């Protein structure tokens, strides 16, 4: 991760044309406007813990002010992209290794012949922040999608960090159209994943509701049992009174029964009251759970065009491969 941070830091300094020197892992930086106001005019910093010196050389890394500032500035900043990738190797040399590799796969005991053609294509560039909010989770992730009519979407390619870019001199971009198109592509691309997440969310709500419902039933049964027991007890006292041998005993047991009945009626009232309260509470909980909404939100962070060289390798057996060496993308058609 700290390699990414180093790369991020240096790319930031270069992007902003900030003057810096790197010697023995220590960056000596002269900030100019507007960054001098944020980071100070001069700064010495390092990613290497051993080089840190109190008050002199600041250790930077995840969570440090400088890095956090850069991350938050760039992860929220909308960018319009119009770039092309400058190939490291030109023509057939760029694709030779891949052809050798494919030859092994395609020859199947006979010599496979093929034709290679080269074309420049303009991939659509889209970076979005995806925020998914479900019953128990909130996920935020950024993704960069490259798409083109003739290819499957290319997602989060690490190779994008290692290529040489050039600015495209002429970019024609109908922003409104691009956005509409990007929305469709994104919806299609995320559909499966979001469906799975939504199912998990729905399943959770279903299970939760079921569990609550079971809990509710269980409590109701328990309450019913208490009432039943009370009724039984009254009945027992009544029959005991009726079976009494003497009038006095009968009278005594009758009074006892009345007393018991009164006590049990009160208990019954209590239980019914508790039951009602629990019922309300649980129904409220069930209602709350049912109303937890699944939400997916995407925020467009950058759109544009990336021009790349694509090779089409067409085999005599009818199979065709599309290959973009700089991004290590290979698609069979």
């Amino acid at each position: 991760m700290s390699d990414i941070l180093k790369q991020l830091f240096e790319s930031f300094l270069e992007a902003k044309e900030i003057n810096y020197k790197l010697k023995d892992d220590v960056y000596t930086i002269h900030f100019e406007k507007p960054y001098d106001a944020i980071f100070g005019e001069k700064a010495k910093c390092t990613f290497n813990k051993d080089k840190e010196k109190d008050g002199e050389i600041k250790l930077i890394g995840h969570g440090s002010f400088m890095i956090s500032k850069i991350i938050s500035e760039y992860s929220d900043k909308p960018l319009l992209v119009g770039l092309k990738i400058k190939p490291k190797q030109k023509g057939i040399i760029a694709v030779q290794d891949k052809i050798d590799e494919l030859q092994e796969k395609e020859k199947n005991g006979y010599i496979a012949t093929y034709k290679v053609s080269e074309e420049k294509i303009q991939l659509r560039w889209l970076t979005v922040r995806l925020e998914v909010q479900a019953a128990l989770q909130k996920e935020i992730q950024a993704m960069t999608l490259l798409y083109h009519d003739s290819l499957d979407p290319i997602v989060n390619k690490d190779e994008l960090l290692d290529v040489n870019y050039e600015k495209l001199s002429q970019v024609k971009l109908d922003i409104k159209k691009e956005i509409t198109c990007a929305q469709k592509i994104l919806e299609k691309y995320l559909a499966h994943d979001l469906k799975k997440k939504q199912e998990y969310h729905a399943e959770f709500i279903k299970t939760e509701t079921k569990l609550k419902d079971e809990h509710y039933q269980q409590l109701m049964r328990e309450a019913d049992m208490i009432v039943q027991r009370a009724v039984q007890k009254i009945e027992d006292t009544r029959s005991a009174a009726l079976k009494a041998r003497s009038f006095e005993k009968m009278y005594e047991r009758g009074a006892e029964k009345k007393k018991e009945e009164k006590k049990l009626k009160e208990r019954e009232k209590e239980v019914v009251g508790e039951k009602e309260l629990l019922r309300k509470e649980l129904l409220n909980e069930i209602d709350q759970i049912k109303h937890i909404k699944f939400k997916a939100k995407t925020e467009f962070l950058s759109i544009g065009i990336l021009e790349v060289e694509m090779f089409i390798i067409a085999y005599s057996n009818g199979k065709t491969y599309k290959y973009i060496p700089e991004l290590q993308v290979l698609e069979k058609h």
Partner: protein
Amino acid sequence: MEFLTNEEGFLRLQKDKLWASPSEVVVSLLANKANSLENVKELLGEQNYKDKIQMLQHQKAATLKVLNEFTHRALLADEVGLGKTIEAGMILKEYIVRKLASKILILTPATLTLQWQEELRSKFDEDFFANKPEDWDMHDKIIASIDTAKTERNAKLICSQNWDLLVVDEAHKLKNKQTLNYKFVKKIPKQRFLMLTATPLQNNIFELWNMLDLLHPGFLGTSKQFKDQYIRDNKGLEVQHGDELRKKLGRIMIRTLRKHTNIKFVDRKIETILLDYTSEQLKWYQDVLIFVKKQYVSLNKEEKKSVESSSEDSEEIISQVELKQKAREYQSKGILGFRLIMLTRQISSSFRTGVKALERYSQDIDEEMQQKEIQNLVMRGKQFLEDQKTDMLIKLIKKAKTKVIVFTTFLESQKNLLIDLAMQNISAIGFNGTMNLQEKEAAINLFRNDVQVLVCTDSGSEGRNLQFAYIIVNYDLPWNPMRVEQRIGRVHRIGQEHDVHIINLAFNDTVEAYILNRLYEKIDLFKTAVGDMDTILAELKTTKSFETMLFESFITADTDKEAKQNVDKVAEQLKDAKNETEKIKSFDEKIFGELHIGDNHE
């Protein structure tokens, strides 16, 4: 799916021909990659706190586990002294840095709200609002006592908002489904939820089910299913299918025990030195106490003053926030009431500090007779040339021949001590809450490398690790046991290799001596294990601060005997709370001893 397309922004960029440069595009790609939460291997917030805390392996492991493996719901149940609050702070910071949480609510017992606020501020650079509920809706990050939060009015406000993160400390108090606290926490809309307790088990294992069902509803099934599957007896004291239960709990609960960490915990050696006043000094001390008592009784509403008008005192206690809280507590007696407590403590600290405090107090008194009385006390106080406490301190320091941290509550005492030590050719440096960050760093470095004595106030020392020293002198004594614990905690912490020596200085026949002899010794305060004091104080059933309870014990008593009896009552309460904690610990040990949830970290 909702789309925020930022169309206008892009159109504007196009109109202004502001196409991103290649390097800007790369920076943006890298920034997004660095900010991603997928499979967290490094803690983005670490840079913020790595110098302020000694992060332990089990804490980092727990944090990563909660972020990667749990469903953002966790019961942090490490044994006392292993830094659960730090763990919670690390998780919280990570959520903040990664922009996953901005609305955060922390619920704690009333005795711990300020401690949480201080810890988050001093260790994690996070400012939480811990004040008036009326202002809660103006803040996104709030610490509140659960009792304040659950009142009808406040609960309504809290439950009407969606919290990205809810943290509940001392979560064992949510062991009963029928309580208002339980029902209230259940109702709070929350995305992420952390519960903290050192004692997840108290009376029976059903209570654990209650807590976990609140944390992650349905996770352990219904109570009946849980009972049928895992409990052997009706009382919930014996478990069955322990392996299966352990696995299940390991997916929602972090439980590290000391024995699993190989952390060395050293002993505490306590020495209390009680000095004698001369007869004049004792008479003076008693006369000041009588004056304080008279003042306290005569205070009425007309004499109320606002908190802001007494800024002198604010430097001497823990923070502005605490000052405001104390002042609220003393609203019925006004800020003067609060200053009387401080005065009682200041005269115990030293004569010079006491005299200065009396002088300041006299500025707020208009009545002529009272003015005269104070002037008389001031005059008499100024005549004492002998300072037995400071003399003893100097002797101790000379004898120690190693680094010594001297704690005092008051800036005035600190100032005088630094002068006294300098006159004795003892190298010493001060450390207090009025210093800025650089000054504090410089002072600690000097103490670490060159200077023998650090004279420290409570507010200055918060959150600092000073375990390279192991002798502490309490020049005066905090009236709040948590402060005592915090002082000791600066050196008696993980990483300390020597036994810690704690020397208490006090005068016989003073309030401090009562507190030392009858209260702190009764609960064996100075020997209480690291972190235990939080649990004990949280068990204490009171809405008042400890300082207030003590002050009232003295001030409301008509005789010395009654005062002692009152302090004894406070001591009994504290002792009961301690016993309760001990009882809980042994049940916990019995069940978790069988379950070994701590194996998760091995």
